[in-house]
């Protein structure tokens, strides 16, 4: 089950003095849906290009299906379907022709390619646009054609670079559902990069956080949040009917910080923001009320990818 299919070891890419990817080590198992998450310019696309052997790493190695991408890119590309960011098709050919062309570049005979292309176009929901020129396709249709294009070579791994960029929310949902379905049905390993955490959260088994060329955390979302917020996995907001300038506030703040499990207390816009190592909601509420304040708002949050994301990307600058 846990067979490694993508194995990156100390992968580094430098452009002059700028390090785009910095000693990246990562292994992805067969059948996994892996999300590469990071802001623009974090080095996600560069990493993908190195995996496909389309650009040479400065140092380190990338193995896909046990094949060295740098030394033998052709064999890797036979097994990997890659959907580039903002993929383009030949606008004066029909979607079907475009697919057949890709298939034939993958050494599939024309006859077989035709059958397969039709089948895949149907599957991605483009059956009505088969004969239409790809130039008339909308962005969402183009992405779906791209997915069909990636699948026509029967890949073991598919790599999608920002696949949901520029599609409307409904389209995104359908597209992601399609990816998941494929991965589960065919056992295809999916790696996709995105800067949109919600999409990643929805579909990925595991996530890698990528900032400034470094992979700062890997894991499923729950373990990530546990690790990142080990000392304070809970966040509680409590609102009271007093302005921050009131001297009583300081007293209350002190009191709250003595509550068991509370690690940090902040005050902002009539709201306390408390970080806790355990679920201390009841105690906090009790403390506030017993101190004679009016509690008008109480909210308990568990950390999602959002917090992970912002925490890291905001924190990313501080670490530098």
């Amino acid at each position, binding site marked *: 089950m846990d067979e490694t299919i993508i194995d990156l070891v100390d992968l580094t890419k430098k452009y002059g003095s700028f390090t785009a990817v910095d000693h990246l080590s990562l292994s992805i198992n067969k059948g996994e849906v892996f999300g590469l998450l990071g802001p623009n310019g974090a080095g996600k696309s560069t990493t993908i*290009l190195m995996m496909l052997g389309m650009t040479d790493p400065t140092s380190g190695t990338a193995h896909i299906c046990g094949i060295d991408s740098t030394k033998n890119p052709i064999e890797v590309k036979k097994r990997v379907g890659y959907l580039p960011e903002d993929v*383009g098709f030949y606008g004066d050919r029909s979607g079907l022709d475009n697919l057949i062309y890709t298939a*034939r570049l993958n050494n599939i005979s024309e*006859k077989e390619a035709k059958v397969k292309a039709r089948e895949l176009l149907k599957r991605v929901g483009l059956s009505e646009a088969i004969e239409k020129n790809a130039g008339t396709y909308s962005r969402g249709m183009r992405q779906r054609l791209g997915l069909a294009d990636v699948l026509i070579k029967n890949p073991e791994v598919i790599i999608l670079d920002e696949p949901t960029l520029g599609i409307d929310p409904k389209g995104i949902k359908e597209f992601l559902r399609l990816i998941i379905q494929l991965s589960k049905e065919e056992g295809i390993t999916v790696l996709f990069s995105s800067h949109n955490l919600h999409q990643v959260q929805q579909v990925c088994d595991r996530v890698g956080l990528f900032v400034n060329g470094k992979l700062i955390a890997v894991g499923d979302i729950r373990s990530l949040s546990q690790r990142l917020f080990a000392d304070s996995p809970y966040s509680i907001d409590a609102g009271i009917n007093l302005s921050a300038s009131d001297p009583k506030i300081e007293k209350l703040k002190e009191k709250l910080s003595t509550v068991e499990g509370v690690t940090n207390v902040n005050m902002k816009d009539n709201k306390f923001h408390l970080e806790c190592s355990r679920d201390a909601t009841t105690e906090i509420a009790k403390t506030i009320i017993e101190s004679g304040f009016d509690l008008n708002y109480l909210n308990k949050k568990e950390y999602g990818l959002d917090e992970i994301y912002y925490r890291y990307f905001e924190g990313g600058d501080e670490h530098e």
Partner: protein
Amino acid sequence: MGSMKFTTGILKEETNMSNITNQAPVRTSKFSLPNIFRNSRNEEIPLHPFRVIVEKEISDQVRSWRFIILIAIIVLTTLGSLYTSLNSLSEAIKVSHVNNSFLFLKLFTVSNGTLPSFFVFITFLGPLLGIGMGFDAINSEHNRGTMSHILAQPIHRDYLLNAKFIAALTVITFMFFALGFLVMGLGLISIGIPPTPEEFWRIIFFIILSIVYVAFWLNLSILFSVKFRQPATSALTVIAIWLFFTVFYPIIVNLISKSVIPGQMATSYQMYFAEELKVNLMRIVPNQLFSDATTTLLVPTVRSLGPLTMQQVYGTIPGALPLGQSLLLVWPQVTALIAGTILCFVISYVMFMRREIRSR
């Protein structure tokens, strides 16, 4: 559409042929049927990806409006020049007293002054054809976002560049042979005298030379299509180079040669040197190389492309050179053109292979 089917047909035929040769020992005894009957069997073997790209590029070229317009211009000018040469042919026969046997070649060279002759047209329009077919070869692929898509397929990167070149060259080859034979055929019908074998071969070599000439411009434009991201920039750059060579360079050479021209009292050696300098300077220009070479091939009485001294000419019997000698005479020109083509290709190849391909 029709032409696309045509090319596909040709390539398919070739697959069948190659399959037959591959499996000949096993099959010859079993099958004596013509190819058509084996089609269903052989279709299962896919074409090599490189051939697939070439096939696609050819059909792209042939279907593009640009190509249709270019071919229309060239066919029209061909017919025009053929018309004028046919009109002035009778005059030319009277004038030429040296050798009337090269009458057929005059179809390509003679003109009454209203329209230039066929080979002058090719000198002029050939570059335009080459530029038109190559100036957006690589950068358009990039701008459409198809580049990273194609390169993500299991093919070597140079396939794309090579296939573009081969495809354009194939189209040019077919076109020039068609044009050459068109002129020959129409000429044959209207003057009624068949070409001698030597004339025929001279015309074939002329056609091959034209292909090399256009291939040079094609490669130059492919080079700029690799270099510049915008097709407009690359097109303008190549056209600028073409204009420089056809219009400005001769003017510059004239200025230089005027400044070095010796006075009335100069020795013949100095005169010779000045003339030689001028000729050599002009030889940098591909157009000059081409027109020198074509003149030699199509006008067999041309015996030297540089200046000749009186001693060299003295005592020669006026007559035509045999084909072999003409070919020998143009050999440096042809070599230079081919070298230029290869140079451009190598530069664009290196640039293309080193570039990192990112999406759009």
